[in-house]
């Protein structure tokens, strides 16, 4: 397993570092922006707007997690599909399912760590100036966005690993429709009841890539 992680790290390390920088830059921007807003308009108006008009302090981060997810899937699996390099990977003396779970697990863990850290820093930073209720409302509103990043990673991997272009387009469209449901402008906390289903769906999506790998293995064209 260490060797698989080593390979994936060598392949993706520059991109992972870039993601780290991007998230850090955006979080810094959110802190500066919310701080400046507070200075300019005063705490009463800002609090009123947040509570009364459901203003999202973390709104700027909305599309970064899904972009990170899909790009990590491409960085990780496009080189495997280029010239059918995946054959070399699957020919290694390790159970093929274990190999693919290791590769997917690496990407999933990297994103989960990045998203968790970003979310924790955001909430801690916001809690300096805002009430617990406002911070929690922003947490619940950002949760589906971060989950969307994990979905785009798993569904992006499923699409990248698919050997047939027609089926790949179908996978991409299906993935886009599924992920879009997480980005509708609902009230804060609207997704809270959807969360257990989201987690179950994530677990199912993990296995989609194994299906694409099995198709690759059978030489489906």
């Amino acid at each position, binding site marked *: 397993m260490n060797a698989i992680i080593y390979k994936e790290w060598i392949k993706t390390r520059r991109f992972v570092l870039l993601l780290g920088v991007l998230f850090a830059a955006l979080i810094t921007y959110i802190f500066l922006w919310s701080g400046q807003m507070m200075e300019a308009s005063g705490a009463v108006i800002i609090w009123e707007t947040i509570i009364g008009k459901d203003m999202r302090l973390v709104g700027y981060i909305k599309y970064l997690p899904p972009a990170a997810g899909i790009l990590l899937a491409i960085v990780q699996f496009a080189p495997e599909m280029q010239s059918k390099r995946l054959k070399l990977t699957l020919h290694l003396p*390790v159970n093929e399912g274990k190999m693919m779970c290791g590769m997917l697990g690496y990407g999933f863990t990297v994103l989960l760590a990045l998203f968790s850290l970003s979310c924790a820093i955001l909430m801690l930073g916001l809690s300096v100036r805002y009430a617990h209720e406002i911070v929690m409302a922003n947490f619940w509103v950002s949760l589906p966005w971060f989950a969307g990043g994990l979905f785009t990673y798993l569904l992006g991997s499923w699409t990248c690993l698919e050997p047939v272009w027609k089926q790949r387009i179908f996978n991409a469209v299906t993935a886009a429709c599924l992920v879009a449901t997480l980005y509708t402008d609902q009230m804060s906390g609207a997704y809270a009841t959807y969360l257990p289903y989201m987690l179950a769906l994530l677990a199912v999506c993990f296995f989609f890539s194994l299906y694409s790998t099995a198709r690759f293995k*059978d030489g489906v064209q």
Partner: protein
Amino acid sequence: MAIIQCENITHYYGNRLIYKNISFEVKRGKILGLLGKNGTGKTTIINILTGYLKPRSGVCRILGEEMEHLSPAAKSRIGLLLEGHIQHSYFNIEQIEKFYSQFFPNWKREAYYELLKKLQVAPTQKISTMSCGQRSQIALGLLFAQDPELLILDDFSMGLDPGYRRLFVEYLREYTTAENKTVFLTSHIIQDMELLIDDCIVMDYGRLLLHEPTARITKNFRRFRFQATATPPQTPVLWNTEKVGHTWETYSFAPAEEVRRELTSAGGEVSRFVEEKLSLEDAFIGLTGKY
């Protein structure tokens, strides 16, 4: 004992027949070359053998295991070279060795670095920046370090200049002979195969044309040039008889006298009858035809 056994393999791409009921086996310690024109399915056979293509029917066994369900233990005994010396190009020379070494308990690190000494490359050079020739040496070094019982090499000469091709063949020949390895390979450059292979399988569209020791083909298969007063007959003894300018040519495993007898069996006369020894490449043309 057979290291590779294929039984009644039939495969189609869509409605196009690639093979029908082909069977062959490769004995331990043999170097077998798969020859065939473009599109006769050489890479398809490699894909079926290594479990990356499910044939319509039939079964292949490698090291006694069915190709679709090769165990990790069996895979560790099989070295695979993909067409074009494809490797994980995001690694550098040191990283790829470190990566592969973790999968094989009997990894021979020194075999890899010994081969790479001759390359004018830094250990930190990325594989993606190397020429195809340099990548071929990396691939060969990794195979030697893995030290597998069976090597499957798909079009090993693809993209290599004559120097690298010769280098590859010489190293491979030395290694396989010294270590009693079994090799199954394809190449579109048949001169290289002649230096290397013990047996060869010649593929034609949809079928296996011939499976013979290379020595038997180069020793017995001959080209005959002649002039004839009538069109020569088509018989099983004569291969790909055709007229080139004013002269006819045909190929045969039969001795000259028998060929002459066959040619005149339809009543015509034959003159300027010349027998020629053939290289493996010429023999391949004689067996499969020019077109």
